[in-house]
C-alpha cells in the first residue's frame, strides 16, 4: 500500500461515529484544560486513563491525542490574553501575542494562532504519513554529541529573543541555565542547590517558573502603572485577522511549519525549540515594517504554527521509539502499553489501524479545533473587558492553582512567590524572561548530553566535529555568532570613523 491508500484506510478508521465522538471529546476537553491554567493535559489524561481501559487502543489514543493537541490550542489563548504560558512551547507566543492584546488586537492574534496551528497541523500530519519510518531511524541515530551541539545552537541563538541589550540577554540565558541545574544530577545522582529540601530534588517546576515570571510579575507591573489598566478593556477591536494580515503571515506560517515539523521529530524539547527557532528566523528575515517584540502578528503566527507542527510530529518518536517528549506523551505511552501495544519501530506494521487511524484523526481533530476555536475567539476577547481590578486576583489564584496541581505540593506555591520577586526585579532591570526560560529548559539537557558524550568517548572531544549532525550544528552556531557580532562591530567602527 502506498501512503495515500494508507491515509484513506486511516480516514476509514477515524471517521467511524465512535472515533469521531472520542476525537471531539478529546479536542473539547483539551481546549478547556488548555485555557484553564489550573488543570493541565497531564492531569486530565491521568484521570481519564482508567476510562480508556474499556475502549479499544485506537479510540483511546485518538481521544488522548485530542486532549494533547487541544491543550496546545487552548494554551495559546492564555498566553495571548493574560501572558501566562501554560506549556513551555507557548512561552514565545507571549512575547508578541500579549503585546498585541494590549494594543487591542487580541482578536487577530487569537485568530492567526488558530489558523496558523490548523495549517501547521495539516502539514505535519502529511509529514508523519510520508516520512515516519525514515525519520524514526534518524531520531534513533541522534546521539548525545548531536544533542549537545543542537542545544548550543539553540542557546546561542536564543539571545535574539530579547528586545534590549545583548549582554542582558546572555546574562539571562546563563541565569536560566543555573536555575535549570537545581535538582538531581543525572550522572551521579547528587543533589545540587537543593538546600536540604526534598521538593527541590527534581528541580524547580517549569509551571511554577512560568507562572511567576510571566503571570505574576506582569500583574505586578500592571498594577504599578495603574493608569494603563483600562486601555486594555476599551479597545477590543476586530475578531479575525484582515486579509492583508493573513497574506503577510502566510510565508511565515509556511516556513515555521516546516521548521516545527523537523524539530518536533527530535525526542525531548522539540516543540519548544521549534517555537522559538521559528520566531528567531522570522525576526531575522522579516521585511519592514516589522515590530517584533511589540506586537507583530508574524511573531504570533511563527511560534504557534511551529509548536503545533512540532507537537504533531513528536508523535513520531513517541509511537516508533517509545520516547516521550513531555509528560502528556508519557501518559499516552502508558495508555497504549495497558492495551498491550508497546510503542516501537514495529508498531506501524503490527497495528496499521492504530497508526493510520491516529494520523487521520489528527487531521479531523485539527479541523474540529479550528471550528471550535474561531467562534470562541469572540468570547475570549470579551474576557478582556472585565475590569482589571477583578482580573488580577483571578490571575493570581489561577497561577497558584496551576503551580499546586502539578505535584499537589504547597512548596510549589512558595516557589512561585519567591520567583515572582526575582522576576519583578529582573523586569525592573529590563531583563527579558524569554531567553531565561530557554536556558532553564535547555541548560540541563545541554549538561546531561555533554557529560554523556564525554563519558561514552572517554574524554575525546573530537566527536563533536567528527559526527556530521553535531558538526553542522556547531558550524551554524558560529555563523549565528558572526551574524550577531558583525553589525555591532560595524556600528562601532562607524562611530569611530565619525569621531
Amino acid at each position: 500500500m502506498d501512503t495515500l491508500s494508507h491515509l484513506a484506510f486511516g480516514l476509514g478508521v477515524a471517521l467511524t461515529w465512535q472515533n469521531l465522538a472520542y476525537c471531539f471529546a478529546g479536542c473539547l476537553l483539551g481546549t478547556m484544560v488548555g485555557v484553564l491554567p489550573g488543570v493541565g493535559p497531564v492531569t486530565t489524561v491521568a484521570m481519564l486513563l482508567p476510562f480508556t481501559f474499556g475502549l479499544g487502543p485506537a479510540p483511546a489514543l485518538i481521544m488522548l491525542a485530542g486532549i494533547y493537541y487541544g491543550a496546545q490550542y487552548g494554551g495559546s489563548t492564555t498566553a495571548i490574553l493574560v501572558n501566562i504560558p501554560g506549556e513551555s512551547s507557548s512561552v514565545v507566543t507571549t512575547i508578541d501575542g500579549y503585546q498585541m492584546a494590549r494594543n487591542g488586537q487580541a482578536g487577530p492574534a487569537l485568530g492567526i494562532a488558530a489558523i496558523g496551528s490548523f495549517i501547521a497541523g495539516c502539514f505535519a500530519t502529511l509529514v508523519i504519513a510520508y516520512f515516519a519510518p525514515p525519520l524514526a531511524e534518524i531520531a534513533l541515530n541522534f546521539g548525545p554529541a548531536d544533542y549537545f551541539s543542537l542545544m548550543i545552537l539553540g542557546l546561542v541563538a536564543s539571545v535574539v529573543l530579547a528586545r534590549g541589550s545583548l549582554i542582558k540577554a546572555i546574562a539571562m540565558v546563563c541565569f536560566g541555565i543555573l536555575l535549570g541545574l537545581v535538582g538531581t544530577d543525572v550522572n551521579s545522582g547528587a543533589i545540587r542547590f537543593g538546600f536540604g529540601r526534598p521538593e527541590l530534588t527534581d528541580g524547580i517546576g517549569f509551571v511554577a517558573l512560568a507562572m511567576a515570571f510571566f503571570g505574576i510579575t506582569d500583574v505586578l507591573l500592571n498594577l504599578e502603572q495603574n493608569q494603563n489598566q483600562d486601555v486594555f478593556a476599551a479597545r477590543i477591536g476586530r475578531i479575525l485577522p484582515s486579509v492583508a494580515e493573513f497574506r503577510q503571515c502566510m510565508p511565515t506560517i509556511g516556513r515555521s511549519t516546516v521548521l516545527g515539523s523537523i524539530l518536533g521529530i527530535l525526542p525531548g524539547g522539540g516543540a519548544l525549540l521549534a517555537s522559538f527557532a521559528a520566531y528567531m528566523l522570522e525576526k531575522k528575515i522579516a521585511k519592514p515594517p516589522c515590530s517584533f517584540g511589540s506586537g507583530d502578528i508574524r511573531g504570533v503566527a511563527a511560534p504557534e504554527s511551529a509548536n503545533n507542527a512540532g507537537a504533531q510530529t513528536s508523535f513520531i518518536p513517541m509511537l516508533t521509539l517509545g520516547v516521550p517528549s513531555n509528560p502528556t506523551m508519557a501518559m499516552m505511552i502508558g495508555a497504549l502499553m495497558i492495551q498491550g501495544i508497546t510503542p516501537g519501530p514495529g508498531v506501524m506494521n503490527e497495528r496499521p489501524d492504530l497508526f493510520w487511524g491516529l494520523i487521520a484523526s489528527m487531521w479531523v481533530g485539527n479541523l474540529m479545533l479550528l471550528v471550535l476555536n474561531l467562534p470562541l475567539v469572540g468570547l475570549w476577547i470579551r474576557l478582556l473587558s472585565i475590569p482589571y481590578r477583578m482580573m488580577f486576583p483571578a490571575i493570581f489564584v489561577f497561577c497558584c492553582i496551576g503551580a499546586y496541581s502539578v505535584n499537589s505540593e504547597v512548596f510549589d506555591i512558595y516557589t512561585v512567590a519567591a520567583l515572582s520577586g526575582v522576576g519583578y526585579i529582573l523586569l525592573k532591570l529590563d531583563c527579558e524572561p524569554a531567553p531565561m526560560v530557554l536556558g532553564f529548559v535547555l541548560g540541563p539537557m545541554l549538561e546531561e548530553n555533554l557529560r554523556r558524550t564525554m563519558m561514552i568517548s572517554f574524554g575525546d572531544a573530537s566527536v563533536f566535529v567528527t559526527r556530521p549532525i553535531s558538526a553542522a550544528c556547531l558550524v551554524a552556531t558560529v555563523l549565528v555568532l558572526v551574524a550577531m557580532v558583525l553589525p555591532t562591530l560595524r556600528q562601532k567602527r562607524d562611530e569611530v570613523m565619525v569621531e
Partner: protein
Amino acid sequence: MSRMRNLIAAVALLLPLGAYAQTYPAKPVHLVVPYAPGGSTDLAARVLAAKLTDMWGQQVVVDNRPGGNGFIGMVAGAKAAPDGYTLTLATVGEAAISEALFDNTPYNMARDFVPVSMVADADLVLVAAKESPFNSVQDVLDGAKKQPGRLSVATPGAGTISQILLEWMSLNSGTKFQHIPYKGGGPGAAAVAGNNVPLGILSASGVTSYVKSGHVRVLAVFGTKRSSLDQSWPTLIESGVKDVTGSTWAALFAPKGTPPAIVEKINKDVVTALKSDDLIARYAGAGSLAVSSTPDELAARMKRESDSYRSIIKAANIRSD
C-alpha cells in the same frame, strides 16, 4: 482489678476493630505512588486501583507524589493514619535500595511500614546493539577483560536497580564497565537501539519492540529463572556469572500500626485482584507479571534483597553524592 480493666479495654478495642475490618472500606482509599503519572509503577497502580474500585464499591484514588528520589511519596505514605485508607505502592528502589544508597533516607521500611502484598514484577535484561560485536554474555566479559572500564553500559539512571546489577556483575566476574545513566528506560533503550551505547541493562518490556525490529539483541535476563516473555533468553547465572539476579518489582505497603485484620483483608482482596484475568492481561501488556504474596513472603524478599544490595553498594562504593 487492673488486670480486669485491661481485659475490658482490650476487648473494647478489639470489638470495633473486628467490625471495622468487616466494613472496610467505608470511604475512598488513597494509593500513594512516589512517581509521576505515566511510568510503569503509576500504570501498575492505576490498573490495580481500577480493579479494587470495582471490587470494593469505593473509589481507590491514585495519589502521585513524585520527587526527592521517592522520598516525598514514601514519607507521605509513612505518615498517613494507619487505618488502611492510605496505602503505598513502592518499588524495589524505595523498598530495598534507597536506605543503603542515601545517608539521609527520611523513612525506614521496617520501622514505618507493614508489608501487604507483592504486586508486579518485571524482568531486567542485558542487551547489546545490533552493530556491536557481542552475541553472548561471554563475549561481553571477554571484551571487558580486554579493555577494563572501556565498555559502556546504558541504564535508566544512577542509583537504580540496573546500576546495582551492573556493579554486581562487575564484582562477580572481575571486570569493570563504564556506566552511562540515562533519564529513564525509554531514552536508555533508544540509546542502545541507535548504537550510541553498545550495551544496556534495561527492562525487558522497554526493549521488546527493538528486539523484534532487530535493533538490539538480548544476551541474558537477570532473573532466577528464564523470562516468560521469551524462553530462549538465558539467565545471567546460566551464562556463568554466579549469584547475580534482580528485577524491577512493586509491592503494596500500609503504614506501621495498621490493624492486622485490615492488612489481612486488603491482602486477600489484592491477591484476588492480581489473579483476575483482565488485570493479568493488562500487566502483561505493560510488560510485567502480576505477582501476589503473603505479607510475610514480601517481608522476606525485601530483607533478602536489601541485604545483598547493601553489600554491593558498599563493595562497589556506589554513592549518591
